[in-house]
């Protein structure tokens, strides 16, 4: 080992992949294999939401010069036994508008797209059912929720407690269908080298895809090689295998060529998942002093015909506040829509919007400051699991946030502050996100005089993992960062968990540390030395309730003539364990908070009830926040180390920034205008209701 160096972890080092990214030289999926030999795939999508294909005429497509193949359910290779939601081109059944029904492979992308438009498909179509309502008679309770959560939870006699409470609120909130929409559209480059399938792919961890793709093509793991060094955002949509990856594999097999399949932006609305809409009934009962006596959070949401995706919307409510009587429920409607998927903080994002809006409304009824109301209901143990929190610093976040934002002395009255034609208000909301870790392995190759080669199939989807893992490795090896040569994003590297659930650092970091441990105090022979290390969950999840916490404060301005909403400033304070890199960590919180702003003001995917399609399926109509929508963003964190959870003391920071952000803005909107908008997004039209 070389001399001990200054600690890299906790510093503000710049992104090591930054210089390549700013010039556009870091290769994303589509940008591999650019020698001109690749051919291109274009998809034909179902216009029926439900029914059967009665005919496919590919003759006009095949007649075009340059067309190499047209795959349909009649001629496509048979796939192995994969989950229904990724079964594609295997039968005449269609289950949502946009489902691929044919794929054209051609020498150029222009010819492929033209040919795809010439494939004529007829359907025996049925009327789609895409409307989520609470009065549907087919709502059902799933076996369990995503991530293994119980569908329902009940403690005490909730109805009696609600009836007996001196003060209460009973309010229904709605959050819309949303789409992840990373700016890099999903793309796969695929080639069969003999019996080895090679893919350059946009995903959240190559190993995440291995089970489905090997099963689909009937190959063993050693015959699948997925390369994904750089990924242009994901937010959940790139976590799982989707149909396009299997189509790319099929197209490469049929043509024997390197194929490139890049989704179009409209296809991003149907083929890679979305966040379910939710309808959430919140009932809170409280004493006059604000002490909660009952919490009831009932969720209705949707899933698709081809998948059961049960978003864990009310699970944060199970731990946020103390109350003796408490209940959460989740019910699903199975609709003729594409399969939902995870989208940044699935569950917490819509669920905490509702809970934190209801807490604000309760504070108003009680005449208690909304920060104070939260402080008065701070539990000393996890209120449903009855275990201690490993660390819980929500109170510190609220206090520090209030201080930084200038909350003290806030006039609670709504609709009374004006600045010219602007109505001005402020709002607060709390945040939480679970801390988890998953099994991962890492390898370190040490050769005297050379940098340590640290290999792990981790994924950097913009999180800063390239940099943070290099920092962790440098500290673990006690060398400067430039003595670490990190390799990630390759299925042939040691298996690691995917980037998701804010688990990257808590899972990958300890694996690298475990590998480095193998080198401690060992002399490295001239021929080099290779060690591996593994890390994963222990019993911390049973012993403790581990969560990151945070507090959002927002100022909102509403134009009293137009209803336009602006958010000139936000303050976010987080308690999220050890922050590995203060620069990239701040960006994670910033990105989450801003995506929450985008959720609050802009985002909604509209399902057309007649045709069953997403009507606003592009970035001109599905609005995400633009630069001008974002004002001053004040971000800080509590000095916290959670050693009880993992050896890094970290908690994961990719998702908590979005949780509660929209509620703070909604609460500020009320404070500005005196009007509650309880169905996101808060677009200008809703001012005129």
């Amino acid at each position, binding site marked *: 080992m070389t001399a001990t160096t200054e600690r890299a972890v906790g510093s503000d080092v710049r992104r090591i992949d930054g210089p390549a990214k700013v010039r556009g030289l870091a290769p994303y999926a589509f940008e591999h294999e650019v020698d001109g030999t690749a051919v291109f795939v274009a998809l034909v999508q179902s*216009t029926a939401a439900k029914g059967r294909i009665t005919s496919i005429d590919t003759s006009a497509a095949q007649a075009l010069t340059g067309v190499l193949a047209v795959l349909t359910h009649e001629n496509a290779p048979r796939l192995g036994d994969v989950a229904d939601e990724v079964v594609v081109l295997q039968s005449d059944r269609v289950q949502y508008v946009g489902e691929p029904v044919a794929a054209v492979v051609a020498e150029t992308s*222009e010819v492929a*797209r*033209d040919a795809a*438009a010439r494939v004529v498909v007829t359907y025996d179509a049925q009327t789609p059912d895409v409307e989520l309502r609470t009065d549907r008679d087919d709502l059902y309770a799933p076996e369990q929720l995503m991530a293994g959560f119980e569908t329902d939870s009940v403690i005490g006699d909730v109805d009696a407690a609600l009836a007996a409470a001196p003060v209460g609120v009973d309010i229904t909130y709605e959050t819309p269908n949303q789409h992840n929409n990373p700016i890099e559209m999903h793309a796969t480059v695929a080639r069969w080298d003999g019996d080895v399938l090679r893919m350059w792919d946009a995903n959240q961890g190559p190993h995440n895809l291995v089970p489905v793709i090997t099963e689909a093509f009937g190959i063993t793991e050693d015959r699948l090689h997925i390369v994904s060094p750089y990924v242009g955002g994901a937010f959940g949509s790139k976590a799982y295998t989707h149909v396009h990856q299997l189509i790319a594999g099929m197209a490469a097999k049929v043509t024997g060529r390197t194929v490139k399949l890049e989704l179009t932006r409209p296809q991003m609305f149907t083929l890679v998942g979305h966040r379910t809409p939710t309808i959430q009934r919140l009932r809170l009962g409280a004493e006059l002093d604000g002490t909660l006596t009952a919490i009831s959070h009932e969720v209705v949401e949707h899933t698709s015909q081809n998948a059961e995706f049960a978003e864990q919307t009310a699970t944060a409510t199970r731990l946020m506040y103390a109350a003796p009587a408490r209940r959460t429920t989740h019910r699903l409607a199975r609709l003729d829509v594409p399969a939902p998927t995870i989208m940044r903080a699935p569950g917490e994002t819509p669920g905490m919007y509702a809970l934190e809006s209801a807490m604000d409304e309760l504070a108003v009824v009680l005449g208690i400051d909304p920060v104070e109301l939260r402080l008065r209901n701070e539990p000393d143990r996890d209120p449903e699991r009855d275990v201690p929190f490993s660390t819980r610093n929500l109170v510190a976040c609220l206090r520090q946030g209030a201080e930084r934002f200038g909350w003290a002395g806030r006039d609670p009255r709504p609709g009374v502050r004006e600045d010219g*034609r602007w109505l001005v208000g402020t709002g607060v909301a709390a945040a939480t996100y679970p801390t988890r870790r998953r099994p991962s392995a890492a390898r370190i190759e040490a050769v005297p005089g050379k940098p340590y080669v640290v290999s792990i199939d981790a994924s950097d989807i913009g999180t800063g993992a390239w940099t943070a893992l290099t920092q962790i490795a440098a500290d673990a090896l006690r060398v400067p960062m430039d003595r670490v040569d990190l390799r990630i994003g390759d299925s042939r590297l040691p298996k690691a968990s995917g980037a998701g659930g804010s688990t990257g650092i808590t899972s990958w970091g300890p694996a690298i540390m475990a590998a480095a441990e193998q080198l401690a105090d060992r002399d490295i022979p001239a021929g080099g030395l290779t060690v591996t290390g593994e890390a994963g969950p222990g019993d911390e999840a049973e012993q403790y309730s581990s969560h990151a916490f945070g507090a959002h404060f927002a100022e909102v301005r509403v134009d009293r*003539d*137009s*209803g*336009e909403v*602006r958010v000139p400033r936000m303050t976010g304070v987080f308690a999220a364990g050890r922050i590995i890199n203060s620069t990239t960590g701040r960006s994670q919180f910033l990105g989450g908070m801003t995506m929450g702003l985008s959720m609050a*003001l*802009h985002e909604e995917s*509209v399902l*057309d*009830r*007649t*045709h069953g*399609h997403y*009507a*606003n*399926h*592009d970035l*001109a*109509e599905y*609005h995400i*926040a*633009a*630069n*001008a*929508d974002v004002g001053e963003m004040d971000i800080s964190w509590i000095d916290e180390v959670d050693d009880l959870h993992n050896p890094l003391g970290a908690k994961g920071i990719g998702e908590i920034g979005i949780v509660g952000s929209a509620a703070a803005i909604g609460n500020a909107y009320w404070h500005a205008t005196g009007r509650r908008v309880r169905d996101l997004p808060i*677009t*200008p*039209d*809703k*001012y*005129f*209701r």
Partner: protein
Amino acid sequence: MREFRYEKATDPAGAVALLAGEPEGAYLGGGTNLVDLMRLGVATPDVLVDVRQLTSTEVEDLPDGGLRIGAAVPNADLAGERRVRERYPLLAQALLAGASGQLRNRATTGGNLLQRTRCTYFTDTTMPCNKREPGSGCGAVNGYHRNLAVLGATNEGADSSHTCIATHPSDMAVALRALDASVRVLGADGERSIPIAELHRLPGDDPSRDTTLAHGELITAIDVPALPWATRSRYRKVRDRASYAFALVSVAAAMDLQGDVVADVRIALGGVAHVPWRATVAEDLLRGGPATEAAFVAAAEAELAAADPLSDNAFKIPMATNMVTRTLVQLAEARA
């Protein structure tokens, strides 16, 4: 996208001659709308005649103090043009409120006028749309129509071949409508000048036609007549995002204020109709009357009285009323 030939001509007359023999051909300007529509399969020309370098990129003074804007002047250059900023603030503001910096650099003045609706049923070839496919019906009336027309639309039900609730997407055209611009057009029979009021048309019984231009007619320039009191003018756009979004409602207005009296006024609305909507009812009520907020509200309400909204776009009526009112108040308060 369907295959097409790409042609250049040496002068505007040559381009007109070229396209006259190409019934499925189209002119290519900046391409910011046409190329997009071709990629979507909405526009399927078999030949593109590139006119970017044929028509003028100059802004010239007209003898009356107005301006002649070459059809190929990029939107960005027009907004940056000092004479536009000084004489017609509403036009500069309308241009700057449209699209993005990148698009404004590429989009031309002539092309901007000929933008097609962003109604999502028009841009999706799998959906019914009378504008794109006459007789196929209208998907929007019973679907996603939050940002569609409330004035001058035709709604005879989703299955009618007349139904169309599309809006015209241009910001610039709203300002030019308020300014009574005229459009110089070259056709096979020579040049003519069309008042902008007669360029765009309501859907009527043929929603497929956005304008009164005949096939092959080429916009060569836009003339903006002098309007000395347009120095007291303003363009106000309400949209879902703070920037880079089409109008929910926009207002272009200019006021000739004599003391406390509205000697003359121009008002046009965007985002509410198939055409840039000139608020003549409001103008007539205001002209010669007091420049008071009450008068402005009454005029705006009178203009919007003809509105016929659907379930999800009714908000445009109070929004437009408020925005007309507020814009006029600001003009009345502004220093000339």
